[in-house]
């Protein structure tokens, strides 16, 4: 029967002591009895015995599972140590906890956005299909497809098992009680099978339902089902009115389903192509999605797409595909959804890791100075036979306990952060609604807290136990203290380096963001209220729509405080609006280059004035332009400059479609400034505006210029429109300033976060610098006393201390600047009109760092000044 070494079975320290002491006493007695003096007897026995501790150690070793006892002992000891200095422990745990929490949160977000696959069946095989069309200057030249192009793609491609077309739209849903504005899309029947989505109740579309004229059916999302229909299963087969037409609901999609590229969509209806659509090659309005067959790789699919491209170009010589450098482009769906946040997220991850490293360095420095304070105790233990390994183990256990506590604190922080992120970032980050804490995340937190503990615990532990005998000497800043100081100084330099790199990077991002804000978008967004109205009634003639808008304009213009009212088919920076080919009648360029892809907009009189778009030549639309007057258009300055350079564009002609198109020629009546419709960060395509009276678009966005805060007018405007026609509720009611802010949201979030992390890092580094300088001063009290006794005055002393601190800061800053240069190559794609070596950023960063360093070194320097030489010299 083996006795296990738990609890009471192990002989206690006391018992072992007593046992051995008894032996000693007996032996001494016997030696005295043999004739030695008491003193000699004791000395002999002591020699014979050797080290008490060693014997006790061996006795304890005789018991198995001793490591468990040791661990428990170390843990108890660590807890006692931590409880004894609560301030110290609190600082370490909170700093590390903050860093670990931030890391976990960022990693969580990254995991749910970048690493987790899309929730569709075999999502790696899904691709977006774009048509490349080089117009004037949009960066990626990616265009939607037209109906003929899609049909040819379906006919010619060999590597796709499904192809689906989508066209985003919004619906006025009347549920009897109220009219809701719902986002949705018209889609091919093959979309949902392609994504592997099965209906929760009901059925999906059949391909027969794609023909025009068939009975109208609709699929709704789970959340809409709950919101608008109360989760009633009887909704299947019910007919609802959408946009004035009756649709039968045939199915409800499951709760997990979201079409990620457009996650707000709640209603889907079958897409159908009329004869007119099938002849409009130049009308690019369809998004296409496809699934690659299992037996083909993506390379093969791309090769096939290239072949389809060539076929389309060859079969349609009358269309300017060559001039547009047309190509069918495939883009993996995942890339489409998350591609533009991938790099910013990695940059944020690098930033939080830097913050964690700085926090570790601070913790290590703190532990190092504390180990130094315990040098005497450690030295004595080593001298009495304590094994170095034991001591190191004990110190590491202590740092593991601190690490575990920080990990718990960090986990709690991360949970809270994730809840906040979901609320704040839903418009800035894709897929963020699916973020949650799961096992990989928790494992990550545990691993990072353990790793952190090892990093900041190992070095001080090893360092403090090496040459421990030195601790017994009188320490006047002896070798051990000096080596510890060197470590601490190295840590501070490292911290400053990391924080300077972070600061400069954040500064570049901030400057980029400010530059984007400073871009001239071509219009004046201040004091403009916008709202969209979808006058969608297919049966009604265009006259009814025109009448409606006329009454709306009259009513809104009469509101006090309203300066101008206008409307446009697609507001800037909203993604609304379509594009198409226009053929320009000019001799300035060869005919085969005279058919660019242009953004097409339908505008009412008053639009340009309401939006503050500058008129350059000619005139804007007014009452002269009616449905019966000559077809006219307004172009933007880039079109004018490219195709009629040096001439007056007013009076020139252009037409919709390719050069062979039968559309009527349109006369140019005016030239306006270029508007950045797509994004603030780059010019958009050339723009062509046609008047509402001649090409009525059913959905228009009203632009209302007001006196003062436009948001105040929202309710009044809404009520006026409701009074005119309650079935056409306005939606997307926003100020233009809000729309502009939303368009840069994807840039704003990483910039703000990066700035926050950089500030965190700098503050931590400043605290680290302060700690190290304080410690250095306290160790050098003797030296300072000497100097003062030899004639140095207070200000010389303080200057000496500050010089040292600033030298460390300078070293760290230079390294940090070099680091930021290296980092800038990585981030340069994300900067906007800011060069990586930006003097303004570097200067501001240097000034900030210098200021903080001055404060951090000044306080210890003052303390150094106050040293009384007599006291300092005497105490040592």
């Amino acid at each position, binding site marked *: 029967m083996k006795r296990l070494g738990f609890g009471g079975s192990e002989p206690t320290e006391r*018992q072992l002591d007593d*046992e*051995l002491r*008894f032996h000693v006493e007996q032996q001494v007695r016997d030696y005295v009895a043999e004739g030695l003096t008491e003193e000699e007897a004791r000395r002999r026995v002591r020699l014979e015995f050797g080290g008490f501790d060693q*014997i006790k150690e061996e006795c304890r070793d*005789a*018991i198995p599972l001793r490591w468990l006892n040791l661990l428990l002992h170390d843990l108890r000891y660590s807890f006692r140590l931590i409880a004894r200095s609560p301030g110290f422990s609190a600082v370490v745990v909170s700093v590390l906890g903050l860093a670990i929490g931030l890391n976990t949160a960022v990693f969580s977000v990254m995991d749910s956005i970048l690493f987790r696959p899309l929730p569709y069946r075999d999502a790696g095989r899904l691709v977006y299909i774009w048509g490349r069309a080089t117009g004037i200057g949009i960066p990626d030249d990616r265009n939607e497809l037209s109906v003929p192009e899609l049909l040819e793609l379906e006919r010619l491609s060999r590597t796709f098992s499904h192809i689906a077309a989508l066209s985003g739209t919004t619906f006025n849903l009347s549920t009897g009680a109220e009219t809701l504005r719902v986002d949705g899309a018209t889609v091919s029947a093959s979309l949902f099978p392609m994504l592997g989505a099965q209906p929760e109740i009901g059925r999906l579309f059949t391909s027969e339902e794609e023909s025009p004229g068939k009975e109208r059916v609709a699929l709704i999302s789970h959340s809409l089902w709950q919101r608008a229909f109360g989760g009633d299963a009887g909704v299947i087969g019910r007919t609802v009115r959408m946009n004035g037409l009756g649709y039968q609901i045939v199915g409800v999609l499951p709760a997990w389903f979201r079409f990620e590229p457009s996650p707000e969509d709640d209603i889907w209806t079958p897409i159908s192509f009329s004869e007119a659509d099938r002849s409009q090659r130049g009308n690019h309005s369809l998004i296409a999605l496809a699934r690659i067959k299992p037996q083909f790789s993506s390379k093969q699919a791309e090769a096939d797409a290239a072949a389809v491209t060539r076929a389309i170009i060859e079969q349609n010589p009358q269309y300017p595909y060559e001039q547009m450098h047309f190509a069918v482009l495939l883009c993996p769906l995942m890339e489409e959804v998350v591609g533009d946040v991938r790099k910013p997220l990695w940059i944020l991850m690098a930033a939080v890791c830097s913050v964690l490293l700085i926090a570790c360095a601070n913790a290590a420095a703190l532990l190092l100075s504390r180990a130094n304070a315990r040098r005497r105790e450690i030295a004595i233990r080593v001298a009495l036979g304590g094994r170095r390994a034991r001591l190191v183990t004990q110190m590491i256990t202590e740092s593991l306990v601190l690490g575990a506590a920080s990990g718990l604190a960090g986990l709690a922080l991360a949970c809270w952060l994730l809840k906040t992120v979901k609320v704040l970032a839903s418009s800035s980050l894709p897929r963020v609604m699916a973020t949650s804490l799961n096992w990989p995340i928790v494992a990550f937190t545990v691993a990072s807290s353990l790793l952190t503990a090892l990093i900041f615990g190992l070095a001080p532990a090893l360092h403090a136990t090496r040459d421990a005998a030195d601790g017994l000497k009188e320490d006047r800043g002896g070798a051990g203290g000096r080596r510890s100081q060197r470590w601490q100084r190295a840590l501070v330099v490292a911290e400053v380096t990391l924080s300077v790199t972070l600061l400069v990077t954040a500064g570049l991002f901030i400057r980029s963001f400010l530059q984007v804000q400073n871009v001239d978008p071509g219009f004046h967004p201040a004091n403009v209220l916008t709202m969209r109205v979808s006058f969608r009634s297919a049966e009604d003639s265009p006259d009814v729509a025109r009448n409606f808008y006329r009454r709306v304009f009259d009513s809104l213009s009469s509101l006090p405080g309203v300066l101008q009212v206008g409307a446009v088919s697609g507001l800037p920076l909203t993604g609304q609006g379509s594009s198409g080919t226009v053929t320009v009648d000019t001799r300035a360029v060869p005919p085969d280059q005279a058919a660019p892809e242009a953004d097409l907009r339908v505008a009412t009189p008053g639009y340009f004035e309401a939006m503050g778009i500058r008129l350059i030549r000619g005139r804007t639309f007014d009452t002269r332009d009616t449905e019966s007057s000559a077809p006219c258009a307004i172009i933007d300055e880039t079109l004018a400059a490219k195709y009629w350079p040096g001439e007056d564009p007013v009076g020139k002609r252009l037409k919709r479609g390719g050069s062979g198109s039968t559309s009527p020629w349109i006369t140019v009546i005016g030239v306006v400034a270029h508007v950045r419709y797509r994004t603030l960060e780059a010019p958009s395509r050339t723009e062509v505006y046609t008047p509402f009276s001649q090409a009525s678009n059913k959905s228009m966005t009203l632009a209302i210029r007001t006196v003062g805060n436009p948001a105040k007018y929202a309710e009044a405007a809404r009520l006026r429109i409701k009074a005119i026609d309650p079935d056409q509720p306005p939606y997307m009611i926003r100020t233009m300033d809000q729309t502009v802010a939303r368009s840069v949201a994807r840039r704003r979030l990483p910039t703000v976060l990066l700035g926050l992390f950089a500030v965190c890092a700098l503050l931590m580094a400043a605290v680290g610098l302060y700690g190290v300088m304080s410690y250095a001063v306290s160790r050098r009290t003797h030296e300072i006393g000497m100097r003062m006794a030899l004639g140095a005055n207070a200000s010389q002393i303080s200057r000496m201390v500050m010089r040292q601190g600033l030298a460390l800061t300078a070293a760290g800053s230079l390294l940090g600047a070099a680091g930021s240069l290296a980092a800038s190559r990585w981030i340069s794609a994300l900067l906007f009109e800011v060069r990586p070596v930006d003097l303004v950023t570097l200067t501001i960063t240097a000034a900030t760092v210098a200021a903080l360093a001055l404060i951090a070194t000044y306080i210890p320097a003052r303390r150094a000044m106050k040293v009384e030489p007599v006291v300092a010299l005497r105490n040592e």
Partner: protein
Amino acid sequence: MKMYYLYMATEKSDLLQGTLDLLVLKILSAGPLHGYAISRRIQQVSKDVLQVQQGSLYPALHRLENRGWLKSEWQETEGGRHAKYYRLTKAGARQLEVEEANWDRFARAIYGILQTAE
């Protein structure tokens, strides 16, 4: 006459450990003793040839106790002091027989070689 010190080298040699175990078990088979008494008894009975180092004895006592061959108890000595007395258990008695047999075989083997080598 040469005295042999039974001490622990840093690598505990099995032979020395086993021998010490045997001696301790044998001595305690005559009755319970405390550690000091055991060490004196070994010295006496071997007529000062063998002397045990405390650094070896006490770990051995604890090990033997841990394996269930000895049982310890704090008791008062005649002098009125407190000491830890060790006693042989039944399992210890059985182990003693085993060890004695082993030692016997071992000794015969050595002796056998010494005889023939002449």
